[in-house]
């Protein structure tokens, strides 16, 4: 793992922490980075045996940063995020690894100790949460509830704060007396975001926060998140299968496949010059209205059986560049100079792969494979090894 937990906190982070309404947790190390996840492994006990839903995932989230976690359903992205505050289903357990928030490891904490961090430091906006609002309670009261319960504030001050929060997310204060059915879907999702912000958390996790919304409302919500991040110095973690949401809102992206990190790095790098074949496939199978070609790639095959994953690279069975080594050896994570981390045997070390010239014009993605069956000759991709393939 290439994340150094001792990386000093920059002045930007210090400035963001200075804006906190509530003090840091008592045990916090003010010099520690916001969130460091190291070698996290999560298991699910299933009737048919144990399943590693997350297998050795490491990443880091800095103050004021937005990280997107992308991947197909079943790739472990939601499990990764939920395990941070241990909101796992009953059969899920963190098996090993560290989750360090301000240098405090959350994994060994008991359930009651963890409650201090849940919602107060890390809050979550679930997919379709706007449909989970209590229909008989006023919006303002529902937003104020965590303030009353978690922060022990009086009812009046909680209500006052709820009004401020609603205004912050773009709901006029006078609508605090409305019931959920009196608000549109977009407004309700805004209210849910206000609830997530109620305790002034350091990190907000969005689990498919805009998936159920119309395109235009989705754009409004993403714009709101962007603005909140800017104004409040929030750190965001967006979990979504929708790459466009990540492209729009995040600084960094982590692409997961079958419980492992495939590629992680700045959005501007990963999305314009993807290295991992899975990232490339994912990007090229995403319909892009703003691109020139009306072609879409297909990722053949399905996710591997998590009870019995392939021994080497988990993407190998679906990968058109797979070599013998991919089927046997787990690829190591390699970090490149441009901040991208890749786990792929095509990139055994950081200096093997020629990169797209960073200074050059943005290279359009080569979407889809040419119909004649030749390999894609994309910039930055070494020529695939073909010798071992069956005739």
């Amino acid at each position, binding site marked *: 793992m290439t994340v150094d937990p001792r990386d000093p906190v920059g002045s930007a982070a210090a400035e963001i922490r200075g804006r906190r309404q509530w003090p840091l947790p008592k045990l916090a190390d003010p010099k520690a980075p916001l969130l460091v996840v190291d070698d996290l492994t999560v298991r*699910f006990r*299933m009737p*048919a045996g144990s*399943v590693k*839903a997350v297998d050795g995932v490491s990443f880091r989230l800095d103050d004021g940063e937005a990280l997107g976690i992308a991947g197909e*359903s*079943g*790739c*472990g992205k*939601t*499990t990764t995020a*939920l395990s941070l505050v241990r*909101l*796992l*289903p009953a*059969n*899920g357990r963190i098996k090993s690894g560290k989750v360090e928030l301000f240098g405090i490891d959350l994994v060994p904490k008991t359930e009651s100790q963890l409650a201090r961090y849940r919602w107060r430091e890390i809050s*979550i906006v*679930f*997919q*379709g*949460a706007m449909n989970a609002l209590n229909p008989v309670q006023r919006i303002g009261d529902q937003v104020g509830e965590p303030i009353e319960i978690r922060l022990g504030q009086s009812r009046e001050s909680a209500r006052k704060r709820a009004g401020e929060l609603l205004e912050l997310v773009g709901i006029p204060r006078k609508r605090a007396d409305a019931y959920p059915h009196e608000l549109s879907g977009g407004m309700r999702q805004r209210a849910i975001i206000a609830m997530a912000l109620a305790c002034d958390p350091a990190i907000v996790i969005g*689990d*498919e926060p805009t*998936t159920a919304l119309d395109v235009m409302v989705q754009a409004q919500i993403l714009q709101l998140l962007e603005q909140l991040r800017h104004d409040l110095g929030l750190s965001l973690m967006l979990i979504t*299968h929708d790459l466009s949401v990540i492209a729009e809102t995040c600084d960094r992206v982590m692409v997961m496949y079958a419980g492992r990190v495939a590629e992680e790095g700045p959005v501007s790098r990963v999305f314009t010059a993807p290295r991992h074949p899975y990232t490339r496939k994912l990007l090229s199978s995403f319909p892009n209205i703003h691109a020139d070609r009306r072609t879409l790639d297909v990722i053949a095959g*399905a*996710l591997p*059986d*998590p*009870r019995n994953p392939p021994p080497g690279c988990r993407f190998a069975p679906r990968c058109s560049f797979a070599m013998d080594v991919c089927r046997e050896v787990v690829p190591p994570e390699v970090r490149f100079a441009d901040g991208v981390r890749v786990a792929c045997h095509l990139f055994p070390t950081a200096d093997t792969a020629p990169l797209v010239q960073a200074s050059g014009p943005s290279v359009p993605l080569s979407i889809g494979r040419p119909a004649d069956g030749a390999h894609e000759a994309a910039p930055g991709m070494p020529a695939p090894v073909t010798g071992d393939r069956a005739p």
Partner: protein
Amino acid sequence: MTPLVAPDPLPPVAAAPAGARRRPGRARTFVGQVLARNDGRIGLLILIAFAVLAAFPDLFVGRLETATTATGRSLQPPGGGYLFGTDELGRDVLNMTVHGARISMAIGLMATMITVVFGALLGIIAGYVGGRTDTVIMRISDFFLVLPTIVLAIILAPVILDIVGADAELFGIRATMIVIVVVIGLTSWATTARIIRSQVLSIKMRMFVDRARVIGSGPGRIMRRHVLPNVINLIVAQAVLTFAIAVFTETTLAFIGLGDPFAPSWGQILNAAQSAGAPGLGAWWYIAPPAVCVVLVVLAFTLVGNALDDVLNPKSGARR
């Protein structure tokens, strides 16, 4: 992606081994699930016991004793060959109670069938067809819902008996019993219809109903093939509860004198005990056996109905 649920780690295909691609024995697992619950187990046990008694009363206590065949003394307390004592005519209370099981449960069964058939049919039609049909059926059901059973029985009994004659028999069932069955059916179909209708309303919105329409299925086929299988759990649970209510109602009706004097149902026995002054004479053994039986059967049906409701309800998560 459902929040808080493990991302389905098993690909659906892998879930079924190649050779065993058959539907799991649903009936077996279903009974197994009912039996796995305490309420289901106890309820079923009681019911089976009463069913056996009702089916072969002669086997256990001999033929039904009448005033002429009575062997005991009047109002003899339990003991001395009469486990439950005797009534004022010297008949064995045990003998009558066991034979009463037959009448009470037969009435319960018939009333349940009427209730469930009418209730389910009207409920499905009202829910699926909707519109004016729905409104009309539901208003009618409202009327029957508030109708007091006993008052209706008091009014209907003489009317029906007058028409068919008190001694008339229909398929071997005496007219007075038919009155009871009809009265119970009339007053309880409405509840069933309402419950089933509300379920049908939500099923109607499901996509497989639209699909059935698009491929050209008529309303009859859709109700039979797509709606009915989805409400069958409710129907079963409702039937069981109705049975309990029917046995109870029959007892009440017989007690107030609307029963068949020649068929010693539990209610009839209680009625006879009351008119013989058993409570005043301290002859508790005359009252207790039929009363306890009624309570037991109603309790057993409620227990089974409760278990069925849980097991058959897909939302309970017990299935799958």
